[in-house]
């Protein structure tokens, strides 16, 4: 038996022994595990599953073991994903720590910062949020004004952040702050880390058109930031910020396509509209559904091709800006089609039958996909400038 075959067998056995039965089905709607100091688990199994996977390092399978990660190489990581998919195992932990600040720390952080922050992220003990946008700095992120003043042995931060995802539920924030007020826009920014319980940090949820409040505005009022909690060099945070934005784009682009459960759009349409002689009853919608599925398939293949090209060293291929742009626009289109497919039923805002108005609320939420993490227009600017060389 090859090493990989042995690894597959071990993985299969371990998952069989350790994945609770109730965690072997797609998580419905909002029932995701985010971990952190104040997280309310929806079940004992959810907690158990996160803790077991965290202890094994498999919440962050490809991070080095010295920081609590799984230490898996690419082939092993693929096997783990396949074996989890085989039993429909849920993701044990959703985490901006794993998706965003963790990779940034691995790339730019000091040894001490890695030792301090990475293992709790892997174990799901600390939940992170991102302090990027400000009321006056959205698409023009580098125009941010929140500042951190050098007080000798520490910084004092003041300002206001907005669109802080789950800011009211997070334990720590990674935050862009202006540390040199005289420097030109992009220079003079630092990436700082601080505990959300630090005095002066006040997150306030923002109610969205979807009715939920996944985002906060976060006020910083004389917040003490320790000097050893700056990632990379002081005033060099923009490079890391850009790296993180790329990560975020990939995440949003990819996430958009994965979130509607087991049925394809076509299958959903069949159930909702019925068929006559093997064809969906509404011919115009049938065409709309088919066109979406064709574009959806082409997009999924492109995400696959980009990954394969990076792996085989064939240059950069299509960039994250394209995936973000296309993926989010496609997701918005999917939900518009889903509304039509479901008719007036799709307008149910609340109640048992509509699962709490899941469809219209999710539909409204998708409108933010092409705004957050850089608008579609910003992505097109990036493509035009960086890839096509149009100035």
């Amino acid at each position, binding site marked *: 038996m090859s090493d990989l075959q042995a690894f597959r067998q071990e993985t299969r056995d371990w998952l069989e022994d350790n994945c609770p039965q109730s965690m072997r089905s797609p998580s419905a709607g909002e029932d995701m595990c985010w971990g952190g100091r104040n997280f309310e688990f929806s079940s004992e199994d959810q907690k158990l599953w996160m803790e077991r996977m965290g202890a094994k390092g498999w919440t962050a399978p490809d991070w080095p073991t010295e920081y609590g990660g799984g230490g898996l190489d690419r082939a092993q990581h693929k096997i783990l994903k396949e074996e989890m998919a085989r039993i429909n195992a849920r993701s044990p932990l959703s985490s901006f720590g794993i998706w965003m600040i963790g990779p940034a720390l691995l790339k730019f952080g000091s040894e001490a910062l890695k030792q301090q922050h990475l293992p709790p992220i892997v174990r799901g003990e600390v939940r992170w949020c991102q302090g990027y946008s400000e009321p006056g700095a959205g698409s023009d992120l580098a125009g941010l004004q929140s500042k951190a003043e050098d007080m000798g042995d520490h910084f004092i931060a003041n300002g206001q952040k907005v669109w802080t995802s789950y800011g009211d539920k997070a334990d720590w924030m990674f935050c862009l702050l202006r540390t040199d007020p005289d420097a030109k826009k992009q220079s003079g920014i630092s990436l700082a880390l601080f505990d959300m319980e630090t005095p002066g940090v006040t997150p306030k949820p923002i109610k969205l058109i979807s009715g939920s409040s996944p985002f906060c505005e976060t006020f910083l009022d004389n917040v003490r930031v320790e000097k050893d909690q700056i990632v990379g060099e002081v005033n060099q945070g923009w490079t890391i910020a850009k790296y993180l934005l790329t990560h975020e784009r990939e995440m949003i682009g990819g996430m958009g396509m994965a979130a509607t459960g087991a049925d*394809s759009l*076509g*299958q959903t*349409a*069949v159930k909702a509209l019925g*068929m006559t002689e*093997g*064809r*969906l009853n509404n011919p115009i919608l*049938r*065409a709309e*559904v*088919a*066109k979406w*599925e*064709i*574009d959806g*398939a*082409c*997009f999924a*293949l*492109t995400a*696959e*091709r980009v990954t*394969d*090209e990076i*792996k*085989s060293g*064939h240059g950069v291929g*299509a960039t994250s800006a*394209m995936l973000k*742009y*296309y993926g989010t626009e496609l997701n918005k289109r999917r939900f518009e089609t889903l509304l039509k497919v479901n008719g007036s039923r799709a307008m149910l805002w609340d109640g048992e039958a509509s699962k709490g108005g899941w469809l219209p609320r999710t539909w409204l939420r998708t409108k933010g996909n092409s705004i957050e993490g850089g608008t579609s*227009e910003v*992505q*097109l*600017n990036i*493509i*035009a*400038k960086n*890839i*096509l*060389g*149009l*100035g």
Partner: protein
Amino acid sequence: MALVLNEEQQMLKESAQGFLNEFAPVAELRNQRDAGSETGYADNLWGQMAEMGWAAILVPEAYGGLEFGHVGMGQIIEQTGRTLTASPLFATAVLGVTAINNAGNEAQKAQLLAAIAAGELTTALAVDETAHHAPAQISTRASLGDGGYSISGSKCFVVDGGTADRLIVAARTSGLAGEMQGISLFLVDRTASGVSVERTQMVDGRNYANIQFDNVLVPATDLLGEEGNGYAALSATLDAGNVYLAAELLGIAQESFDRTLQYLKERKQFGVLIGSFQALQHRAAHWWSEVELCKSVVLKALQAMDANDRQAPALASIAKAKLSEVAELATNEAIQMHGGIGMTDEYEIGFFIKRARPAQTLFGDSSYHTDRFAQLSGF
């Protein structure tokens, strides 16, 4: 399988690019058109291609071919989209080889595939009978009598139909138009008695023909495959045809993009390069993104044919539908962004839209393949 070319496929792509740029560039299309060429390509072009082995790429080694696979052949066809090169590659080396290889018996394969691989035989696939692709709607009849089959009926828009040595004709030996059962494939000499060929003048300047069959006598040995059961092989051949048309359209979409991008960086209005206008930048960026999706689906569809993947038919329709849409976008944007000069015959950009539309339409346009994809997906 990873969605990337291997080293050999990449080399073939580059050598095809070099050859076509040198011997069959867009300027050659103009020459052929203006000279009223019968074939649509220079006399020695097919010989050169065959010499490089291009005619033999899809032919199994057992029949004297290279058996290099669809991904490799796809790279060549994609490049012919960039240079708008007409040649027997599509009708003979793709459609002919695929039909014969899928349906033919040992003797037919041994004889015909070897001849194609050597560049000594050209073929044309005669399927459609109206202006709209409908492979089951075949009325042309073949009836078995003394000395073989007698074929009567008509076919239209047959690619290379005016010049190919042998026609592969889909005819009905039983059943009614619209039924898949009862369709048979026949090998018919273009010059056989009772065959009348009328060349059509088309927007892309290529060689298509409307063909009449009037009691054409075909020996039973020229039945390709089982009588009445030809639809499966025909369908697989059309799938291949559509994937290669998608590959050609990919070349067209890319080349018209590259040329337009270049123009955006050269043309000045209001004292600045027009590429500095965001209105054009965003459209160019969107166009580029669409082409990226096209590259993925064409490669996947080619790989699926090489792997005999059961998703291959659905992927063929996805690829043809998507590429037809994007080629339409690409060639329209190319002209609009070029402005007035894009409307002139003297400038080459206008040739791309004139080849794109027939390639989109042949064997089913985006509406046909969107419908077929939906059917294959169970809705």
